[in-house]
């Protein structure tokens, strides 16, 4: 009902033009179809440009190596990396394991550290942000642990936990934990006082207000933190595996260096990058579900 007047105004303007040119006005269906097809065309064109960009990059790379402009000893051709990708599923040489085993190992480490960080970090940040006493209690310890770079935990972790899954998961956990806590904390601190008052007036206890108002208010910030955590987890994983591991994508890259096999290194980098993209995308799906009201 609100768009009524402005809509008819719009129509009048069009029909004035039309009477001059004597052009037929579009019907409703035609107008919708036109707008939709234009939108689809733009989307398609932009997607094509992205694809062309990637292909052009690969092509230039390929040609540069093939023509001898870049030495193939140091820079493998993309086509060779693709070849290696298929070969590596069955061939454990030279690093001792097939690609699948490296991926599974890395995923285990990254995901266990990452999920543990969410499971502990987010509730901790939320409770610290909401309950002042708990905040004062926890904050000094957290502030001391916070600025420590995750990789500096590696030596002591190796002494404590060896080279296995647990050690690396701990390092990953630490890198993902900090942004989870900080963002959940900041997010819940920004809860609107008006909404808290609304809950109080409805008779909610402090804990109910925390649950029904505080936590949902903090979700946007929390998800931003989880995104950062995911990036950190992935980056730290590779660093940890390069320093201390006998399996995993980081280890594979490291071995590529040992054996002077740049193609192995590039393959490892591409797989790591691709998995990172996939997880960011999955996280986006979850976020879309949880924050669905933010259209």
């Amino acid at each position: 009902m609100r768009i009524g007047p402005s809509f008819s105004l719009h129509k009048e303007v069009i029909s004035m033009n039309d009477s001059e040119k004597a052009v037929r006005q579009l019907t409703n269906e035609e107008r919708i179809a036109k707008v939709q097809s234009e939108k689809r065309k733009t989307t398609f064109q932009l997607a094509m440009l992205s694809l062309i960009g990637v292909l052009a990059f690969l092509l230039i790379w390929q040609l540069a190596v093939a023509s001898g402009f870049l030495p193939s000893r140091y820079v493998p051709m993309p086509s060779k990396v693709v070849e290696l990708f298929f070969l590596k599923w069955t061939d454990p040489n030279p690093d001792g394991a097939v690609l699948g085993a490296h991926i599974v190992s890395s995923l285990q480490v990254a995901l266990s550290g990452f999920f543990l960080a969410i499971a502990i970090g987010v509730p901790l940040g939320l409770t610290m942000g909401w309950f002042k006493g708990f905040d004062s209690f926890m904050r000094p310890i957290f502030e001391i642990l916070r600025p420590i770079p995750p990789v500096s935990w590696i030596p002591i972790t190796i002494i404590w936990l060896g080279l296995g899954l647990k050690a690396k998961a701990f390092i990953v956990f630490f890198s993902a934990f900090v942004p989870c806590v900080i963002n959940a904390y900041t997010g819940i601190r920004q809860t609107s006082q008006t909404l808290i008052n609304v809950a109080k007036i409805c008779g909610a206890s402090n804990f109910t207000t925390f649950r029904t108002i505080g936590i949902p208010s903090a979700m946007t910030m929390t998800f931003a933190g989880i995104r950062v955590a995911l990036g950190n987890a992935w980056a730290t994983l590779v660093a940890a595996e390069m320093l201390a591991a006998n399996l995993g994508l980081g280890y594979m890259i490291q071995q590529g260096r040992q054996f002077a096999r740049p193609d192995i290194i590039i393959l490892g980098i591409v797989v790591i990058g691709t998995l990172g993209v996939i997880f960011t995308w999955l996280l986006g799906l979850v976020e879309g579900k949880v924050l669905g009201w933010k259209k």
Partner: protein
Amino acid sequence: MDSEKVKLKLEHISQSYIVNNQVFDAAVDVSMEVRDSEFLVLLGPGRCGKTILLNMIAGLEKPVDGRILLDGEEIKGSDERIGMVFQKRALMPWKTVMQNVEFGPKIKGMAKEPRREIAQKYINLVGLQGFEKSYPDELSGGMKQRVSIARAYANDPEILLMDEPFGALDAQTRYAMEEEVQRIWETEKRTVIFVTNNIEEALYLADRIVLLSNCPAHVKAVYDVKLPRPRNTIDPEFLRLRREISDNTDLAL
């Protein structure tokens, strides 16, 4: 109902804060009576302490001095017989209209079916049927305030506090909402304490107007508005009262 019966009584209420290490008085010795089922308007210039007074009645903050009596008994903290509509941004953006309105009954542990029924009743009363599944961001400012009003009613309060509920709306919507709130009040009689800084709005709605001074707030005058409803804003008596109150009002600093 006995319209002369006192529903709520403020006795010598004062409120102060520490601002920059100095005591800042926000309200000094405010006393007033609110009658059962009346539409009382608290009128005062901006930042004079109106919200603070409402917050104290709602139990959101404690007065430094004085007592608040509901049905003759002192109240401390939030009381479920008192509901409130806020000026703006008081809806949970992650909840639909229905979920916002049923929030109070849900917190009190009411089962889904009866609470949906109550919520639906008030959604219909404020004229939002068909928007139950919409999110606040999809609604206009006036519609959001309707949701807030429905939510306050769904708690079934005996006293409804409204803190400049239409202050953020454009003039046209504001007039429409004033009519709405009057209609709703006539269908669902409650005691209403309505805060505004707009003299015309006060005169249009009020049974009685309590005029507050500049900060620190104290009661300057009380006006009985005996005009028939709906009020004619160009009626001579309306205009006379308007001038009288206007002459008596402190300029907002």
